[in-house]
């Protein structure tokens, strides 16, 4: 038997739970305020903690650019569902605990000046489960994106469809996919961001259908629960099963991106997916530069004899990124 050495680290209960969080990956005790400052990424091992919808929005979009819509949506107990407590009680409890009406927040915002339609899930509300409200918000986000030709960005964090809404929750798969198909047909881009966890019916509908799929590192992403997979088949699961890197390896995720790089990567991608957008002036003090060659030539292609458009307001970028060397070296570092 191994000899038990006395530990010189303070005992766990010496950390008040409301001030400290233990990192599940490296077991480091982290001071909550600092964790919040580091966007809830463990400074020691890089573990990505889950993020509230609000914190996620703050992380992704330009300051004060988010305008929420459809905040008043609230689920109705259509089935009269009762398990160990009635569904309306569970809803009320979740609302009290989170201060949210349901597991998704939607609205519009700008990301590096690009206006987008945004829908963000929050796992804290009943496991981020998708019922009528989540389905409706995702669908409306897609429909607004279609109507205004705004790029759609959805951040998923969900255990799947909400059992308490039965097949009406299942129907949200069809509802959301239908809206996304219209978006796709219209050539409006959709970037799906999968955070921990993105599973079940959410993964099997809008989360997996991004033109570009991005995942945070080591997020649980899968269809069936790992227990189900192992149990049904009675075989060992491959290492890293249903984690972001596994999904990347199997071709379903374009890029595994650390939280600190997320906003920059999305902004980079939007410059390719929204070529014709007139960009508003940047509001974050960065310097401006960008050639307009592409915009001009695109217009030429679509309407060959059109005069060149006004110079588009240019791409703001951090000085460090301005060197015109390619960023190919990045690709290994981020697995993207």
């Amino acid at each position, binding site marked *: 038997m191994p000899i038990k050495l006395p530990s010189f680290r303070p005992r766990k209960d010496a950390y008040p739970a*409301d001030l400290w969080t233990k990192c*599940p990956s490296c077991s480091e005790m982290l001071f909550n305020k600092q964790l*919040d400052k580091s966007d*809830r990424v463990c400074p020691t091992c890089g573990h990505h903690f*889950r993020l*509230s919808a*609000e914190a996620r929005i*703050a992380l992704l979009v330009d300051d004060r650019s988010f305008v*929420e819509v*459809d905040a*008043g949506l609230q689920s*109705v107990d*259509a*089935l009269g569902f009762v398990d160990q407590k009635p569904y309306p009680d*569970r809803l009320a409890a979740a*609302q009290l605990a*989170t*201060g*949210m*009406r349901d597991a998704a*927040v939607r609205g519009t915002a700008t990301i590096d000046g690009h206006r987008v339609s945004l829908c963000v899930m929050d*796992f804290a509300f009943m*496991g981020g*489960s998708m019922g*009528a*409200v989540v*389905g*409706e918000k995702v669908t409306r986000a897609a429909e607004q994106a279609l109507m205004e030709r705004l790029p759609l960005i959805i951040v998923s964090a*969900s*255990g799947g*469809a*909400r*059992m*308490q809404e*039965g*097949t009406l*929750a*299942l*129907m*949200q*798969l*069809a*509802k959301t996919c*239908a809206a*996304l198909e*219209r978006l796709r047909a219209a050539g409006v881009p959709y970037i799906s961001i999968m955070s921990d966890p993105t*599973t*079940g019916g959410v993964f*099997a*509908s809008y*989360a997996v*259908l991004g033109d570009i799929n991005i995942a945070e590192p080591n997020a649980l992403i899968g*269809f*069936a629960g790992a227990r189900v*997979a192992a149990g*049904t*088949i009675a075989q060992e699961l491959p290492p890293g099963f249903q984690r972001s890197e596994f999904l990347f390896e*199997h*071709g*379903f995720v374009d890029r595994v991106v650390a939280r600190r790089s997320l906003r920059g990567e999305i902004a980079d991608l939007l410059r390719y997916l929204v070529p014709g957008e007139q960009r508003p002036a940047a509001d974050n003090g960065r310097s401006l530069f960008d050639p307009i060659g592409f915009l001009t030539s695109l217009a030429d292609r679509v309407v060959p004899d059109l005069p060149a458009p006004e110079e588009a307001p240019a791409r703001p970028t951090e000085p460090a990124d301005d060197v015109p060397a390619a960023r190919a070296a990045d690709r290994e570092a981020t697995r993207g």
Partner: protein
Amino acid sequence: MVDRLLGRRPVAGPVAPEDAKAEMWNRVQLARNLRRPRTLDLLAEMADEIIEIHGDRAFGDDAAMACGFARIDGHRVVFIGQQKGADTDENVRRNFGMPHPEGYRKAMRAMDLAERFGLPVVTFVDVPGAHPGPESEERGIAEAIARSIGLMTRLRTPIVSVITGEGGSGGAIAIAVGDVVIALENAVYAVISPEGCAAILWRSSDEAATAALAMRMSADDQQALGVVDQVVAEPGEGAHADHAETARRLRTVIVAELDRLERIPTDELLAARYERYRAFGAYTETAAPPMTPPPNRGLADRVRDLLDPTRWLTGTSTTGTPRRDDPTAPEEA
């Protein structure tokens, strides 16, 4: 919308909870009956001709999903359906009717053929769930389901879907996005298996019957919810007792629906299909635009916020509610 959800078929009268549970569980058993007619059994009875097509053109041919052409009462159609086995050997070969991604990708090939050659689609849904194994995950079962759902929502040809046995979650709806959804009397349809639901919400799979009742998974209940448009009565003790008569009854309904749908111009058909699925989900909508409350407020404040949403402020960052990083919560499937 809530009105519609509160049911077209009022329950015949008050029923004791235990009786209702037994009745529901009996239906689940009938839906899973080993001798229940399968997709190809039903087609063998109702079609004058069947030509199966095979393969997803990318990885394999999934015997759990049968696809092809059939002629039903003069209608030439593309059929798609899960196929369980009649005995153990066939069940092993057909993975107990649980398709892998290649099954759904074969189904998409069939849908594409239907659209390009102007044939309506008839789907037969009978699946415990999509195959949950590691290979299924590796090859993208979620992707295959999502794409299949998406394709059906925009397929420019009529689609009749029939829930014939188990309508098991994503594996079912992946081929059940019909212009009309028909169910056999003892078919069931649910977002998760009753055992799975019971294991999560009741912490005991013994409560499967309770979960089945709570989820209202019977064909009648599903019709009341608007998920199923039409329920077809089964002969005698159930479909397993008389395949031929079951098929005959289904054929009558399928043919009537094909006749009806084929008269609708394609654009109208697609608009109606979008609206059918767009409308699902029960919610209320208040005009007020609340945002999350500021952090560190008391419970009483939060209750007041909920009762009077206009009171809410547009707050700033409150990161992470306490339980966010707990293990997966029990509320999800």
